């Protein structure tokens, strides 16, 4: 199995050093980033693309704490684990895929991380399944060069739903660009080359 790439962000260097020492003992983990500076974390995350970000919610700006996921929405495959040293509102914790507390033992940390990665493989199985009929409809419209609002109108759905379908198409196929999705659609006989303008 490929090692999980892990990033750690906490205001305390002692906590960071301690946690990475513990994680080093787990064979399926590789700590790729550790920092007490949020700016560094944000820039490096985008380069390193870790599988898991273990982050103290205190690192996140107070005004943004309720929208943690949206801060990392460009990293949809990354799992968020909260590292907590003091009381954190449950509303905030809900946004994380798992929680590690400062006094958790090795076993506990290990199982939290395993649960997070199990969820990941669960998702992956779903991903490999075929596109739904609706997603195929959206894909065909995309390949024909239609914009989100045109697709919404044609299929009688909201633009928001079109965007959700598009995200799912990208997640399931692993293909991001419209031109490559068009190739995918033709390879899968969803439409003919002559249909494309």
């Amino acid at each position: 199995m490929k090692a999980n790439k892990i990033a750690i962000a906490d205001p305390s260097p002692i906590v960071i050093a301690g946690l990475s020492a513990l994680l080093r003992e787990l064979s399926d983990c590789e700590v790729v980033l550790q920092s007490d500076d949020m700016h560094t974390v944000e820039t490096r995350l985008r380069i390193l693309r870790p599988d898991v970000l273990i982050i103290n919610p205190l690192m996140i700006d107070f005004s943004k704490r309720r929208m943690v996921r949206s801060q990392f929405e460009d990293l949809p495959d990354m799992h968020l684990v909260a590292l907590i040293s003091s009381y954190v509102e449950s509303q905030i914790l809900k946004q994380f895929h798992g929680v590690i507390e400062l006094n958790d033992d090795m076993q506990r940390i290990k199982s939290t991380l395993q649960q997070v990665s199990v969820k990941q493989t669960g998702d992956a199985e779903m991903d490999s399944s075929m596109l739904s009929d609706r997603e195929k409809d959206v894909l065909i419209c995309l390949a024909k060069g239609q914009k989100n609002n045109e697709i919404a109108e044609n299929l009688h759905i909201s633009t928001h739903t079109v965007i959700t379908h598009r995200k799912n198409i990208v997640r399931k196929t692993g293909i991001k660009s419209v031109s490559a999705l068009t190739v995918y659609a033709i390879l899968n006989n969803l439409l003919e080359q002559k249909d494309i303008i």
Partner: protein
Amino acid sequence: MKNIDSKIPVVFARKKMADLLTERSNLISLLPRLGVSLGFGEKTVAQVCADDKISLPLFLLISNVYTMDDYLPSIEELRQCPIEEIVVYLTNSHKEYLEYKFPHIEEHLKEVVADWSEKYKRLITNFFFDYKNEVVDHFKYEEDVVFPFIKKLFEKKSPKKNRPRRSAFDKQHTNIEDKLRDFTNLLIKYIPADVSQRERIDMLEDICSLSDDIEKHALIEEKILFPYINLLEDESK
């Protein structure tokens, strides 16, 4: 457990150039772009750079970007690199992509699609050449707009016009990187199993090496070149 302490660079001045290249073979392809010739015997990185008249800080910086996942130079390190040499390096890289890497992939592509039906042949070939044209346009934009802007800035002519827009620039990079990955996915996952396996693998190897290379290349432009522009602009104020 690599990259725990990213502050220790893999490449340093007193290391033997030959040792460096055998340890990190992906650096070999950078030599012609940097202007380093093979046959340097036991010389260190610093000696080779001095012999070939290449800026040592620039050599270290670029090789570190290519060997470490999360390496970003500090402002001080950046300041030591002559910006004209960065631009020459980037222009050489463009040339190498277009004159060597792309033609190699094109050769493979011809073999891959040789026995395909006309419909699929056209589909994949068109995708690839549309992509290549996009890359050519982007390189041209950099060479015609971005690099001359930097040159003027460096000569303290403070150009007012044509300031390259960072957001548009990053977007083009993401697009170029995404499409190459899309192409890999199409070839790995969605072209039926029974056709041109061997040829497809040869081509995939070339595409993946280009894809890794272009990712680092974009990183140098986004995280090094643009901050450098800002630095020069601040200084000229």
